[in-house]
């Protein structure tokens, strides 16, 4: 398993470092029928970060991706990728980006090797490096022994890995992944997440990912934005977002006389009823021993302590309730269908 770290990236002559990978300004898309899919959104993605765009289906995520990747024209607003305006120089922008669409998009009638070869050629990867990169990518993604098999005989997880392998061959500065792990089993999913992280770390590839899976978003993303009904509802780091829906809550079961107040450094006492204390605190794990010590010092016997922390699910439910369930179900089904189509 060896990956040569890229000294330069194909295409894109802009200077790197501290630059914005994506700058979206008042971006709007109105479809001919009059539906506003994306409603004047503004956000940035910094170079080198993993940025997640979350939201229920129909929130406008895919439309947003299509506009950034030059596949659809915006109605108004501007998008630039590493400082290049997408409407003015779409081909220059496409030279810098890789795109893994939601539906499995590898070609089942070609071998794994050929899929990588053809797309490397379409990306104008230097012919002297092409072969080496392809065999490295196949090796790294555990597909080396299946490289000469037709992709339609691959499993869904292998197809997904092959798609991400394309990014390893083409080395885009910016990689888009639309629901990368949908329809995959937990093991394949874990591998895909790990490989996305590796790609980000080894090559400094900026990654833009959309997902419904909050665990995945939490694990993967440096920053994320939640989109709902064409607007960005909130954005920030996963930590910040979780803080925004409230801190950790300690529930302490005790026997004995409960204190009416607790010292401020332990947290805020939310309720104290029937031997049960609820304490709101910033860092629940650290608070557990201190709360226990404090109560025992007051002659209160602590029977159990449980900690509940807000998850991104809570954040999601707060900012993007509508349509979530229906959306994720439909997506999973269509992804599964696309896998079975390829595996004819």
């Amino acid at each position, binding site marked *: 398993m060896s990956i040569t770290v890229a000294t330069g990236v194909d295409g894109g002559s802009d200077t790197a470092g501290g630059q914005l990978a994506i700058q979206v300004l008042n971006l709007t898309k109105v479809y001919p029928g009059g539906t506003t899919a994306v409603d004047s959104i503004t956000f940035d993605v910094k170079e080198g970060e993993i940025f997640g765009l979350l939201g229920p289906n129909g929130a406008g995520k895919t439309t947003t991706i299509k506009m950034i990747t030059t596949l659809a024209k915006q109605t108004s607003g501007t998008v630039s990728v590493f400082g290049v305006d997408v409407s003015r120089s779409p081909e220059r922008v496409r030279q810098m980006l890789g795109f893994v669409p939601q539906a499995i998009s*590898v070609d089942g009638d070609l071998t794994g090797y050929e899929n990588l070869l053809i797309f490397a050629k379409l990306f*104008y990867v230097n012919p002297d490096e092409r072969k080496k990169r392809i065999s490295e990518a196949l090796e790294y993604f555990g597909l080396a022994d299946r490289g000469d098999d037709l992709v339609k005989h691959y499993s869904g997880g292998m197809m997904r890995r092959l798609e991400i392998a394309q990014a390893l061959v083409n080395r885009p500065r910016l990689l888009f992944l639309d629901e990368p792990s949908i329809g995959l089993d937990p093991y394949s999913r874990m591998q895909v997440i790990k490989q996305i992280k590796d790609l980000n770390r080894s090559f400094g590839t900026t990654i833009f990912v959309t997902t419904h899976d909050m665990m995945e978003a939490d694990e993967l993303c440096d920053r994320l934005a939640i989109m709902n009904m064409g607007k960005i509802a909130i954005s920030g780091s996963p930590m910040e977002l979780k803080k925004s829906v409230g801190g950790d809550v300690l529930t302490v079961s005790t026997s004995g006389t409960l204190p009416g107040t607790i010292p401020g450094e332990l947290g805020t006492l939310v309720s104290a009823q029937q031997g049960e204390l609820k304490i709101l605190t910033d860092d629940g794990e650290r608070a557990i021993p201190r709360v226990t010590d404090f109560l025992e010092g007051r002659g209160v016997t602590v029977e159990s302590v449980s900690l509940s922390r807000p998850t991104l699910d809570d954040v999601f439910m707060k900012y993007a309730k509508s349509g979530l369930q229906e959306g994720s179900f439909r997506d999973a089904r269509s992804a599964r269908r696309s896998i079975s189509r390829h595996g004819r």
Partner: protein
Amino acid sequence: MSYPRRLIGSAFTIAEMEARKIRHDSTELWMRTVQPALWLLIFGEVFNNIRNLPIPGGFSYVQYIAPGVLAQSVLFVAIFYGITIVWERDVGLLTKLLSTPSPRLAIVVGKALAAGVRGIFQGVMIFALALIIGVNLRFDPLDVAGVFLVVVLFAMCFASLSMTLASFLKTRDRMMGIGQAITIPLFFGSNAIYPISLMPGWLQAVSRFNPLTYVVDAMRSMLLTGDYTGLPLDIAALLVSTAIFVACASVMLKRLIE
């Protein structure tokens, strides 16, 4: 890399992609030779016995329809390229192709070239069949090369037309329907299997606007008569319509993914 180099490079890469698929599984191509074979072996042989068909130049009926059957089979191959592109849209492949830095024109030209490659295969098979059953054609190397050139242009022309239609119709079912609706009238409204002089007046007029008529005429002049007087017009008509349809398809293609 300069634009023309990227354009040509990518077009050939797309064509290579198709060629590799054919190499993995060429069943479809072989199946597609059945129909022209039947036209020559059965239809051709039976109608050969009708002596009073006014065929110009004193050729036999099988000789007369061989170029027509070739043109027809290329037409059938090419017109279904729209279905392929809709299929590729459905499986996400088109999105992937359009997100590469390759120019859209290159993708259309590449697909059209791929139709040409399939057309050449049809040509080789029909020539082989003609040799086997003893249909006398002028197998002059330059003429054969000329016929292949016409085959490639013709395939490119109708593959692009089909991709343009696909950009509007957007589903495979509709493309199947339109494919049938286009190919059959074009075929019977041309000089492919009978001389235009046999047609009723109104159909004769229509056939003058049928690109298939010009293609068959060009092939016939190279394979049978050796009379090239109509050839420049035939080729010019074909080149112009190919250029128009290729341009339309590259502008319209993105409608499929919007």
